[in-house]
């Protein structure tokens, strides 16, 4: 087991491509917690979240070549798969989305923010600093889009701002965070 527990994520995917279930198990051990937490956060439903996690890990087993280690970390790949699938589910069900909108309005009013969602103590400080540097409006837009699973048009409606402004703020905020994290040596864990 030590061979796999010390393998890089990229090498784990190599082993997965060679039908090594123990490599998939190791990838699951490293990342399933984050994938599940994101799915549950977005879907607000334990069973659906588990189904998404299952799909994400079966997909890397069936199509490991879709992950390109030159283009990003395995973690961000798995989380992007999870996010995409989760928002598909949210958007396919209008009543759920209405409920989500309501919940997120309440969260926004309650001062909920992404500072509480940071995943790793080792990088938490840097990420918090990067978030703190964001203008409030950019932060709110990213939060509602990524952790709320809303389209930028929905975010615009929630915040009562023009759609074009929200679209620009999401990109500007992400660029600002990327810059701050790169300065701190965080953000590229490939």
């Amino acid at each position: 087991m030590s061979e796999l527990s010390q393998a890089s994520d990229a090498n784990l995917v190599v082993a997965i491509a060679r039908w090594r279930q123990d490599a998939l198990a190791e990838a699951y051990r490293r990342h399933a917690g984050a994938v599940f937490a994101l799915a549950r956060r977005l879907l607000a439903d334990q069973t659906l979240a588990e189904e998404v996690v299952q799909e994400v890990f079966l997909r890397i087993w069936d199509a490991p070549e879709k992950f390109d280690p030159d283009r990003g970390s395995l973690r961000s790949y798995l989380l992007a798969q999870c996010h995409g699938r989760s928002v598909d589910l949210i958007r396919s069900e209008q009543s759920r989305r209405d409920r989500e909108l309501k919940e997120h309005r309440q969260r926004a009013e309650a001062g909920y923010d992404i500072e509480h969602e940071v995943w790793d103590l080792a990088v938490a400080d840097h990420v918090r600093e990067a978030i703190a540097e964001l203008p409030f409006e950019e932060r709110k837009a990213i939060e509602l889009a990524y952790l709320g699973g809303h389209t930028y048009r929905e975010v615009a409606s929630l915040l009562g701002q023009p759609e074009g402004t929200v679209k620009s703020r999401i990109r500007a905020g992400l660029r600002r965070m990327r810059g701050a994290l790169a300065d701190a040596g965080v953000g590229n864990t490939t």
Partner: protein
Amino acid sequence: MSTGYRHDQVEELLGAYALDALEAAEHAFVEAHLPTCARCRAEVEEFREVAALLAHTGAPAPPGLWDRIAASLEGEAPGGALADKLSMLPMGSGERSRQTWRNRMGAAVLAAAAVVIVVLGVQLADQDRRLDEMAGLLERDALERAYQAAETSPGAEVIQLASFDGAVTTRAVVTDDGEGYLWAADLPALDEGRTYQLWGDMGDRLISLGLMGRDPEVVPFAASEALVAVAITQEEEPGVVATDQPILAHGLLPQ
């Protein structure tokens, strides 16, 4: 093909795209643009890395979820427990016993599995070549040293692997903390395009422990507590999810 959007218009959408926050039409515009623009692709990847930092680990995934995933991996192929297969493998008549196994599995299941195996095999052949260069998982010298270290470690057990007709015998060692190493240097080298594959009998099902290549020396594997026995088959590159080939050699693990 024109996307109907200028580059700078697509660029404006990249942040929302990376967060899955576009509606279908705009999403499609970006998807059409990305294959043609390395700069935009790089920006999306960077945004996704940033987004990944916003997701937190939370608690571990719920107990039992991994078991369901592992079970569905086996569900996609006609794998049977090694014990079942061995009981159907009369000495030295691999062909007949395979026939028995096929009948037992049912033609439809087998055909479906064959499609899965062929499709995955084609996808993986390319990837394997590419990834071989960066892998470094199977460095022979290091593995030989690992085998020798394992063999002399306290509590290690040596397993003898044998074929039914005695033609293939080799051995493996399993350490106290569940590391396994198969000594495969005695296996004859196979033709191009063929590979040995290592299997683990988990009691109720047979799982792939990994490809061994056509001329293996030392093959590491995970010897979990549930592992009852290991077995070797010969397959076409790049291996299969479930085998219908005769067992070349097998050995029971110490309980």
